[in-house]
């Protein structure tokens, strides 16, 4: 059933897709989350409802968009609403089951930084910033995080806290009254980390085939907690790989297509 020849990006995307139950409502960001959500929709979860912050609700793209506002998303949507409604009527209202986040830095309690490396006033690297992340982190029923694991991104201390995971852990998040349950899983290119039920410290609970605990530890900027029962995740099956690769191929093709505009003769 499983294909032996796949990339780390592919198993990461497939693993993320598998977290999504059919019928769930997902708030989708661009890049790996969009690939994962659409892969899930085109395999085991045909009734997945995808919401992009641009205002498209129930969108069913056949080509992965480069931006969250591509025309494909509007054309295949159930409904296109003003952006403020997405955040108010859907996210803050509690209509979103799953939110996806990525970031430049994550700490052991799944707090995220997507704002700056260095000091805010004089940053070493100015990152894009918050976007929808802080509210997704707060209001989505559950949060899934997709990030490549490196010592530079999995850090003991964030340079800037853009979005909250479990704050200092051990119930600190729940004490704030935050409506969503917080990050349920961090899917990396090594495996999956989940919060400890008591301390909320991220704990390695599963690895991809052939990946060692030592490698995962070396890719983490803090002493990584290892779960007592360490699962080996199944490789992508051939159907998943076929769908994912077809999606990406059609996307590359669409993006290579030149745009031509016909100007009226008078201009």
């Amino acid at each position: 059933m499983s294909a032996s020849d796949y990339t780390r990006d592919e198993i990461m995307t497939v693993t993320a897709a598998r977290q999504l139950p059919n019928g769930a409502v997902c708030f989708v960001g661009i890049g790996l989350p969009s690939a994962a959500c659409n892969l899930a929709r085109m395999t085991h979860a045909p009734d997945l409802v995808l919401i992009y912050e641009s205002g498209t609700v129930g969108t069913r793209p056949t080509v992965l968009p480069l931006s969250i506002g591509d025309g494909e998303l509007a054309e295949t949507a159930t409904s296109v609403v003003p952006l403020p409604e997405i955040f108010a009527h859907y996210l803050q209202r509690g209509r979103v089951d799953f939110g996806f986040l990525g970031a430049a830095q994550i700490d052991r309690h799944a707090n995220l930084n997507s704002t700056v490396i260095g000091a805010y006033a004089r940053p070493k690297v100015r990152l894009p910033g918050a976007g929808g992340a802080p509210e997704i982190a707060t209001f989505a029923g559950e949060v899934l995080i997709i990030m490549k694991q490196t010592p530079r991104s999995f850090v003991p201390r964030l340079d800037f806290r853009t979005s909250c995971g479990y704050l200092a852990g051990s119930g600190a998040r729940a004490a704030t009254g935050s409506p969503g349950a917080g990050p349920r899983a961090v899917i990396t290119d090594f495996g999956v980390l989940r919060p400890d039920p008591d301390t909320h410290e991220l704990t390695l609970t599963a690895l991809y085939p052939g990946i060692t605990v030592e490698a995962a530890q070396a890719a983490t900027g803090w002493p990584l907690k290892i779960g007592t029962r360490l699962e080996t995740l199944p490789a992508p099956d051939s159907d998943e790989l076929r769908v994912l690769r077809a999606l990406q191929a059609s996307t590359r093709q669409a993006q290579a297509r030149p745009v031509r505009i016909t100007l009226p003769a008078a201009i």
Partner: protein
Amino acid sequence: MQLLPLKEAIAAHVRDGARVALEGFTHLIPFAAGHEIVRQERRNLHLIRMTPDLIYDQLIGMGCASQLTFSWGGNPGVGSLHRLRDAVEHGWPQPLALTEYTHAELALGYQAGASGMTCGLMLHHTDTDLDRVSSSSRRTLSCPFTGRPLKAVPAIRPDVTILHAQQIDAAGNVLLRGIIGAAKEAAMAAERLVVTVEEQVARLDADMNAVVLPSWLVTAASIVPGGAWPSYAHNHYPRDNRFYLAWDEIARERGAFTAWMERHVLGVRDHAEHLRLLGVAA
């Protein structure tokens, strides 16, 4: 509504130092209007936009802006906005003061402005460092009915909002179709509204519940086919994802960026010439 050549509309309605919002979320970004602002060498603008995108990278890199209010400043799906980064990280070509929001907060600020309110309210979420660095832009208060913590953000009221749209009719009513982001709220919030459109038609191709801005809310309009390129105008042309990918290289270094802008924006008379020079239009 006054129908004007874009050059005159920008000259009349965008002043040095103004708070200017060019809106359009990925879709219908008013690139032609932004380029005209560059050509007219506006200075010290306070730029406002949820997603600065390439258009603000260009305005910032050309020294038009001293302030930026925004919520996500990247090249969507590609990476960094190098000119925005250079301004923030190194003050080139001039320092850029940031007022930074989340999408939900900035959308709420536009909504408050559109509603004549002084501020907008949302549920307060767990503290982030954004609350700390832009504390003058946020306040927490208690719900007077439930005691629940709420967050207020101030209303955003641009001096001028600039939009691109698909159609204008004979009476001057403007149709936006497809993804509209916070364009309607930004339009209603502003003192003045300048619009570029793909085409003028006798009658809008608009359903009853379509997004139509009435002519009496439009200060000035200009007919600029292709005016949203390299973003897109639904029913007219798709997003030029190739250009968004190419921009990463064009904007990475100051010299290459400046040369590109001099040749393709300053060196052309108008947007049609810009499109022809780039081989996008014949």
